[in-house]
């Protein structure tokens, strides 16, 4: 496989151009790496900015008008409002489950029905979140 790399200050945006006969495993991996780079999010922890993979995020929560990002064990903050995050991730595995929470269903272990019509979501890191009655239909739709 030939590799051609051009660097110049004239390029405002990095562009990856692949020429191939067919997309094999190797090419697919390159595509995944390139795509994966766009599926990251800038978050803050103790004032320090860092990029985390969106797929590693378990859920977003809004507390006192601040948005927090929950990964398996870490908690970060983000400048984005919950409605902006919802809009940004509407085509992904994230779904709004209450006024203050957006859940990644890829980290869901199971659900339990509650007596008041709400659902209890059990996450793979052991945490439990409540899915409000109002958001149960959209949650079911996302799963199917």
């Amino acid at each position, binding site marked *: 496989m030939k590799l051609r790399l051009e660097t110049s200050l004239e390029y405002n945006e990095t562009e990856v151009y692949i020429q191939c006969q067919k997309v094999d495993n190797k090419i697919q*991996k390159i595509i*995944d790496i390139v795509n994966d780079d766009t599926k990251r999010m800038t978050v803050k922890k103790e004032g320090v900015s860092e990029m985390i993979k969106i797929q590693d995020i378990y859920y977003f929560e809004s507390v006192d008008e601040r948005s927090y990002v929950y990964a398996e064990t870490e908690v970060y903050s983000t400048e984005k409002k919950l409605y902006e995050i919802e809009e940004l991730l509407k085509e992904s595995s994230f779904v709004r489950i209450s006024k203050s929470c957006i859940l990644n*269903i*890829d980290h*869901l*272990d*199971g*659900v*339990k*029905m*509650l*007596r*008041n019509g*709400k*659902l*209890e979501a059990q996450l793979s890191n052991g945490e439990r979140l409540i899915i409000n009655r109002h958001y149960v239909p959209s949650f*079911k739709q996302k*799963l*199917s």
Partner: protein
Amino acid sequence: MKRSFFKKLVYYGVSFCVSYTLVSLILSLLNINASLVAGNFWIYNIEIMSVCFCIALLMWLTDTFIKGSSYDDMTPLGIFADLMDVALPVIGLGGFVFDWFDVFSKEILYPIIILLFVYFVVLGFFYLNAKMTEIELNKKIQERKKKLNNNKQDD
């Protein structure tokens, strides 16, 4: 905390309104109001309203102080509290204060039997419905997890 308190208050306020409306509707349909109250329409309606209000109030207290909101977490204490939410206002207020029935005769058995029957039928119906939904959703979640794991292995 404040928002959740307010939401619960609204929820049980609506429950009170719905239950009072339904009871009035059922009694009107059965034509019980006309034969029973004869001239005491307002008093009778205020009595029904008081009982419905007490039931909603007790349900709110039970919900606040007795936790375990999943069907699997239901305890005998929870079931007893649920039954008391209705039994205390109906028997206490309806029987002792409003004289709807004689609490010291066999008449008291009727509201108790109806209460137990309705409670367990409704609970059974909701339990089955909840379990079916739970099984269906968990099946979808497991299928999704399986698919995700397969994709990861392929990579």
